[in-house]
């Protein structure tokens, strides 16, 4: 049942949306990017199950990311980040290069003969390759759902946020509402299903109903994507961060796991190894409807101003 925290703050979203006491536990994803191998099985498994069309056939030149972003035709998106930073204790091997052997140069034309001290130049900074599979966050306070004027977007009994394809009329309001840029109106390709309506991850709502694991999590070879009860996943995530810290990977941090954050915590949350924006996440997202009551107040005041102004214009004109 709706209550004081319906717009902000920790809450059980399914209960808040009116599901009765015995609704299932909230389901979600814990994506541990520290073990992601960037294989994109999640992208493919998702598209196969959900019949999401393939549309993007251009190489982007951004490491191995050719999927660009989460969008109507990409409900999972694997980010690839090549960085001049060390990965904890990992020996990338790319830092320490040449050992000066003091041997005479015999470089063939075409290769630059090493100058004195070039060994230092070859000694590059350290390196790591981060990969991370992004997905709809299934926010506790979901702006897309709140702004949807048709009730197409709804909260399921699992606490997830799902578009009802038969209802959505493609108003597009959910698109700018999402603080993560997840949901999008499907533009094409021609002949694909659901063109013109909003599309995003459903956390495989149909599979959940059948007691199955969402397609992406089932496929994930290294269990970087873990599916389960959010509460349990949060504990698992905390333990994992601790473990990584002990292993010297001090960069490890969780993103979206805090029920007190700007969106009330997310159903799909992440273990990251750098700042969120490095992966294309907003660093401190806030659900826009948190401010909605205030907005309504301002709009009410503005409306009254207009009414009063008009009245004054006519009344004052009596002179």
């Amino acid at each position, binding site marked *: 049942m709706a209550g004081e925290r319906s717009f902000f703050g920790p809450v059980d979203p399914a209960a808040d949306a009116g599901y009765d006491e015995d609704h299932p536990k909230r389901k979600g994803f814990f994506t541990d990017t520290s073990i992601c191998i960037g*294989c994109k099985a999640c992208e493919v498994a998702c598209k196969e199950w959900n019949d999401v069309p393939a549309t993007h056939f251009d190489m982007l030149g951004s490491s191995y990311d050719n999927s660009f972003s989460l969008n109507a035709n990409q409900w999972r998106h694997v980010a690839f980040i090549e960085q001049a930073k060390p990965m904890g204790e990992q020996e990338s091997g790319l830092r320490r290069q040449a050992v000066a052997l003091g041997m005479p140069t015999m470089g063939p034309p075409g290769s630059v003969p090493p100058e004195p001290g070039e060994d230092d130049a070859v000694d590059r900074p350290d390196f790591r390759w981060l990969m991370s599979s992004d997905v709809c966050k299934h926010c506790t306070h979901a702006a897309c759902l709140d702004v949807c004027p048709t*009730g197409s977007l709804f909260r399921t009994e699992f606490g997830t946020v799902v578009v009802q394809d038969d209802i959505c009329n493609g108003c597009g309001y959910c698109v700018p509402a999402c603080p993560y840029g997840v949901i999008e109106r499907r533009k094409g390709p021609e002949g694909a299903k659901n063109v013109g309506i909003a599309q995003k991850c459903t956390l495989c709502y149909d599979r959940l109903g059948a007691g199955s694991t969402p397609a992406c999590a089932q496929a994930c070879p290294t269990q970087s994507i873990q599916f389960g009860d959010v509460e349990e996943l949060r504990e698992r995530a905390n333990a994992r961060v601790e473990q990584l810290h002990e292993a010297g990977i001090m960069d490890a941090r969780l993103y979206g796991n805090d029920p007190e954050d700007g969106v009330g915590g997310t159903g799909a949350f992440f273990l990251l190894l750098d700042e969120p924006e490095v992966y294309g996440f907003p660093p401190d997202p806030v659900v826009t409807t948190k401010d909605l009551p205030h907005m309504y107040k301002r709009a009410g005041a503005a409306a009254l101003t207009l009414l009063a102004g008009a009245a004054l214009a006519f009344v004052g004109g009596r002179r």
Partner: protein
Amino acid sequence: MGIGDGLSKTFLSWPVVRQLTGPDPLGRGPAARSRHTEELTARTETADRVARSVCPYCAVGCGQRVYVKDEQVVQIEGDPDSPVSRGRLCPKGSASKNLVTSSLRETKVRYRRPYGTEWEDLELDVAMEMIADRVVKARNDSWQDLDDDKTVRRTLGIASLGGATLDNEENYLIKKLFTAMGAIQIENQARI
């Protein structure tokens, strides 16, 4: 009566009414659910049968479950029972349904006649007869009983490449037939 009932049912199922009368005044949850949503079922649940299979790509040998509905493959996913893969699949394995149901698949024999510039259609049985004729002829034309006085009983006129993507039973028959035929340049990816 019937109409009245229908109307009242329709009215009562109007989400606005459900919002006003139920536990979901904001219209976020139960009140907003559509009939289609209520009827949603995973197609793995409605499949007619499930075949236990193995991924056709690399040599890890991940288990697959192939769901069939109305004689069409409707889903292929990892088999959680497999001790090899524990239900997981890589992007290629995950694309298996796309592989077997791809619209680019050839389902008709295609024929290119000598010096031809385009594909032509050919009936399967005709193609088989033509191939059998050509094999017999090529074998006869290139038959070799002796090589430098040594008995060889073979043909060097027929070669084959492939097998690493095929079944053991298929490789067995391929090797058996070609060997009986005297064809020896039978090779596959293991040489490459």
